[in-house]
């Protein structure tokens, strides 16, 4: 079933279609949540909350738009809401609140999985990057959004997004070569 028909059946209240949609996008939504929240349970809660919002707003989704960009924006907003709440509850994890103030926290979502170990070097390089550039890598390179979609999500001018994505790629390449000068030669 293609995405358009899946969404149509979800809007009609088909529970099976909704379950299929959740299964198709759960990894991506949870991946975004893990990017912003180092705690796995918090990330799961945020991912679940994101799906609740997605479900409640399905009627409003424009079929001509990029569904991935839409769910990424919702998940990112959920994660930011959670980080704000955690700032208001500093006894739970004050460090994440501080990270939120400074920008987007460092990604750690892949470090506890077998797949993550394969990409250990990339994760370490991402952690060394500035928060703004790292988020550009997340949206442009990891999730493959278009620059105008990123501009819409981050409320930035398109020119700023273009310049920042180029700088982000350059920074990531330099960081990863600092860690392993042979990266990319084989």
């Amino acid at each position: 079933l293609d995405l358009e028909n899946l969404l149509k059946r979800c809007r009609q209240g088909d529970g099976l279609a909704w379950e299929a949609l959740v299964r198709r996008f759960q990894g991506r939504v949870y991946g975004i949540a893990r990017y912003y929240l180092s705690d796995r349970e918090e990330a799961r809660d945020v991912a679940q909350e994101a799906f609740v919002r997605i479900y409640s707003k399905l009627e409003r989704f424009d079929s001509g738009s990029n569904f991935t960009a839409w769910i990424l924006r919702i998940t990112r907003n959920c994660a930011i809401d959670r980080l704000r709440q955690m700032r208001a509850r500093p006894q739970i994890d004050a460090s994440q609140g501080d990270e939120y103030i400074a920008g987007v926290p460092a990604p750690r979502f892949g470090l506890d999985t077998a797949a993550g170990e394969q990409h250990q070097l990339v994760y370490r390089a991402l952690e060394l990057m500035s928060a703004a550039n790292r988020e550009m890598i997340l949206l442009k390179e990891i999730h493959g959004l278009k620059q105008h979609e990123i501009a819409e999500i981050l409320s930035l001018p398109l020119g700023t997004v273009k310049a920042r994505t180029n700088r982000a790629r350059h920074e990531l390449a330099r960081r990863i070569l600092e860690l392993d000068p042979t990266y990319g030669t084989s």
Partner: protein
Amino acid sequence: MDCVEFEVLLFDELDRALASADVERMQAHLLACANCRGLYSLVRSGDQQDVTDLPHDFAAGVAASTSGRPCERAQLLLAASEDDASDDDWLVARHLENCPDCSAVAGALARLQLELPALAEADPGEDFVPSVMAATFGVRSGPAGLQESGPRRFIQQLIRRPRIALEGAYAIASSVLVVVSLTSPSFSELPARAAEDTWRFVADTAGTVGEGISELNAVTLTVADQVAESASANVVEFGANVSSSARELTRTVWDELVTPNLEEVRSLWNEKVSGAVEPDTSNPANR
């Protein structure tokens, strides 16, 4: 052509800046002069020397001392998005042939482009989908099937509110306060006391209004009498008429407007309080 003239024209010939007649004269001199042939051969070999004899970083050194190192610009062009394809690609390619640092960056970027999309997804666990299905049950009002409507949906949404615990505590505290207040004697007697106080206020106000009208009547009569005493006969008659009219008007207002309304107010009040309190008939304003 002698040797001195040959040496003067030699570099112009190398630059191909000579007329064909001068070139022919130089070639004729070369055939005749062994010294100039040697000089010409030496200069030509220097001009055509292979660039591989130059140091590897010769071009980079020249750039560094003139326009600045080109690596930063080359790397930014390498990192530019495919959406921003540039006409400078061939320049960058030429630069990469001689710059190992930028070549390494290019290699890293190419590998990252393959590797990064694989980081998009993470596994939330097997029980994630059931928990999402449970959480979304009854959320949306649009389609049938998964939806719930009415009070239950309202309660579901209420429970998901982040401050539900705090709001619940407020609601419980308010309920306890209301129940305790309702069962206390002072609260149960409140309606009867409020009715009595309100009636007393209405009666007093009506009395005050009545007294005010009486005073107005007296003032009107006094003015009319004074005018009548100090004026001529015609004016006296006019004043008497005014006085009489003022009396009649005041009486009319009192009898037809104030008194019936006072009774109406009293009867309406009795209906509303339904015997909660008897009006105080000792007050002349209430009669």
